[in-house]
């Protein structure tokens, strides 16, 4: 009786890791090509863009908000950086300038959702529209390409045999882990998502923390946008479309509660991996893309329902 209960809490706590484990076992049996070091690196590389964005998203959702504009940020950062480089800017300055732009987006998102107490879902839906519009206006809907060779390194380079995007992603997870667990900012974020009014009355500056979370989310997304640009070597105004769903799905699968205040960054990483392994495995099994969508949706529903049932029990 007692042991059963412990088992249940154990499974509840680590549900996402079990899902990941079973996924890997399943695909290893189903496809002979799945279980290999190359494929493993491949999965990580493919997921690095979403994986990086999920780090920033986790911060915003933990405060009790959400950021739907990440796809727009990815696109805008890409085209701005590309246009600047084409017009002769040094890539480093082009990158810094486009990241500064992403920070500005974060400020705008925080400004409207915090100062006017608007629903962040609606605010960021609006900024998403604006950003996507800007991306098309800036490019005239024509892809931009022709950057210097050195710019490719970010998205396509390796350190040893490990692709640089993976290194950046892992570094960001480590930093996020430390921030959330050990710093004043991280702990305040958790508190704000749990009960904003109670936290305000303890003297913690809500405004500062919320702005920081949104800016962090946008800038981290900006970094993902740069990596994407470097990897594809072309700036497409449509580059970011649909990312918000993958990113939020990863975070929520990983146990970040949409009402804020709960969840761990390690879980987010696992959540993102679950989705990535699923795509990769199905690809290896020659499942058509449309069936992949259906399957992903079902896994998502199953995982969050399972989580909820265990938490309640």
């Amino acid at each position, binding site marked *: 009786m007692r042991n059963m*209960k412990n088992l249940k*809490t154990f499974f509840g706590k680590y549900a996402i890791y079990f899902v990941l484990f079973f996924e890997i076992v399943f695909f290893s049996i189903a496809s002979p090509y799945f279980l290999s070091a190359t494929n493993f690196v491949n999965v990580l590389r493919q997921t690095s863009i979403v994986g990086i964005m999920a780090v920033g998203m986790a911060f915003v959702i933990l405060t009790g908000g959400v950021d739907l504009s990440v796809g727009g940020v990815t696109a805008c950062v890409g085209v701005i950086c590309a246009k600047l480089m084409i017009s002769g800017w040094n890539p480093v300055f082009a990158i810094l300038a486009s990241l500064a732009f992403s920070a500005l987006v974060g400020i705008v998102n925080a400004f409207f959702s915090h100062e006017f107490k608007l629903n962040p879902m609606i605010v960021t839906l609006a900024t998403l529209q604006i950003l996507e519009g800007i991306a098309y206006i800036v490019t005239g809907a024509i892809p931009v390409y022709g950057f210097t060779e050195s710019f490719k390194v970010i998205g396509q380079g390796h350190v040893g045999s490990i692709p640089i995007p993976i290194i950046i992603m892992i570094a960001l997870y480590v930093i996020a882990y430390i921030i959330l667990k*050990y*710093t*004043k*900012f991280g*702990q*305040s974020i*958790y*508190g704000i998502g*749990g*009960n904003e*009014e*109670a*936290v*305000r*009355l*303890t*003297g*913690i*500056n809500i405004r500062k923390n919320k702005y920081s979370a949104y800016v962090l989310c946008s800038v981290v997304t900006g970094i993902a946008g740069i990596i994407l640009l470097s990897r594809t070597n072309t700036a497409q105004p449509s580059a970011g479309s649909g990312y918000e769903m993958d990113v939020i799905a990863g975070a929520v699968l990983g146990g970040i509660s949409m009402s804020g*205040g*709960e969840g761990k960054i390690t879980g987010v990483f696992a959540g993102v991996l679950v989705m990535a392994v699923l795509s990769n495995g199905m690809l290896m099994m020659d499942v058509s893309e449309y069936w992949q969508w259906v399957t992903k949706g079902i896994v998502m529903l199953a995982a969050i329902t399972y989580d909820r049932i265990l938490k309640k*029990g």
Partner: protein
Amino acid sequence: MDAKNSILSLRGVKKQYEGAPIPAIEDITLDVGYGEIYGLVGENGAGKSTLIKTIAGAIGLTDGEIIYKGGKLICKSPAEAINKGIGVVYQEFNLFPNLTVYENIFFGIEIKKNGFLDRKQMIRKSQEILRQLGFELDVTKRVSALSPAYQQATEIAKCINHNVELMIMDEPSAPLTEKEVGKMFEVVRKLNQSGVTIIYISHKLNEIFDLTDRISVLRDGHLVHTFRTEEVTEQELIREMVGREITEIYPEKDFRSGEVILKVENLTGAKVHGVSFELKRGEVLGFGGLVGAGRTETMRLLFGADRKTGGTVYINDKKAEIDSPTDAIQNGIGLIPEDRKQQGLVLNKSIFFNCLLPSIGKYSRSGFIRFKEARSDIGKLYDILKVKAVNQGQLVSRLSGGNQQKVVLEKWLLRDCEILILDEPTRGIDVGTKQEIYQLIKDLAAQGKAVIVISSEMPELIGVSHRVIVMHEGKITGELKGDEITQETILTLAS
């Protein structure tokens, strides 16, 4: 009393929460007779709320059985319980805040006409029931917009409307003023006379003695004794509850006046009109008045929690700009808010986390928290306040009501403020701990700190304050010192 002529019998009831090392209640056997008013008392965390939640089906039992009107009772939810005639007025209100008053009252038993809801009829009947209870209110208002007294009236009205035969009340008087308590008593007595059996939980023993026929004492999850009310004294009851003798609840007052630490001039806000007062080091200043007098509002303005429209605050003779709680805390002011759930705690976080929040800056170096230091300091206070929990890591939502209140106190004591404002500090706290809190207040003052206490409990206000300021409709109506502080003088000034 035996099971036959009892409306409710418990036999060996046990409840162990998931993940808890020991049961919250164990081996509870008792019988409640038809038409009785049955009192339940015990320290914070003794298991009173747990007991009634198992009866009402809000949580499942681990062992034992419940017999209701001669048959075995199995309720899987409070909704099922109320349909079987068992209604509960919870310590934590249990209404749907986003529904209107009448929708709550008719929840699950809506009146229908031709398949559609008959709103007119429900509104009319709801108004009728509430009027009988002595409340006039707009029943189409949302419950979230009501004051605690009206929310409670709605809960009772819901019970009446469902024709309950057994009504269980968990600390119903805690959110009410003395006058409202009087009114609630009338209602309870009336219901009882019409045949409703009542189980009544409270930390206020005078209420228990006033109202009940029999009293059971819970200690550490066990039923230690059941008395006939007329056969027991308050002293004996307290001894059973806390296991020791408590003769004097309030420590002796000694006020060695220090210099003025706080001076408030013409403080003005939405519900506060030109409030001025001074506070000295070493002083305990009480604020008296009826609900709506503007005491809480005054303190929230002073603390920067609400926007003030006028007034100046001086701290140590220097003008202080306080526009937010952050400013207030930097100026050495702390506020323990009256509503622990909404304003005092992050419920789904640990005791440790909650205690750390106000002091998070104090325990951080360049943004990093020094957990070890914090943990040891919090641990010390935790022992002093005797928070009943598995450890500091326990979620606050899993503490009993009184223990949650202790956590709110603890987090502000840890902050070590020069000026501490306590708004209803002992709400829901047991006798033994109350005494300890009064001693703590006295100690703070003796250390040269300044304390402001708001309380709706007259004896408490009189018992701890060196000086009392009385407010009415947002203005100060008078000030009382020393022997002038009595129930009568306060009441005269309060209205």
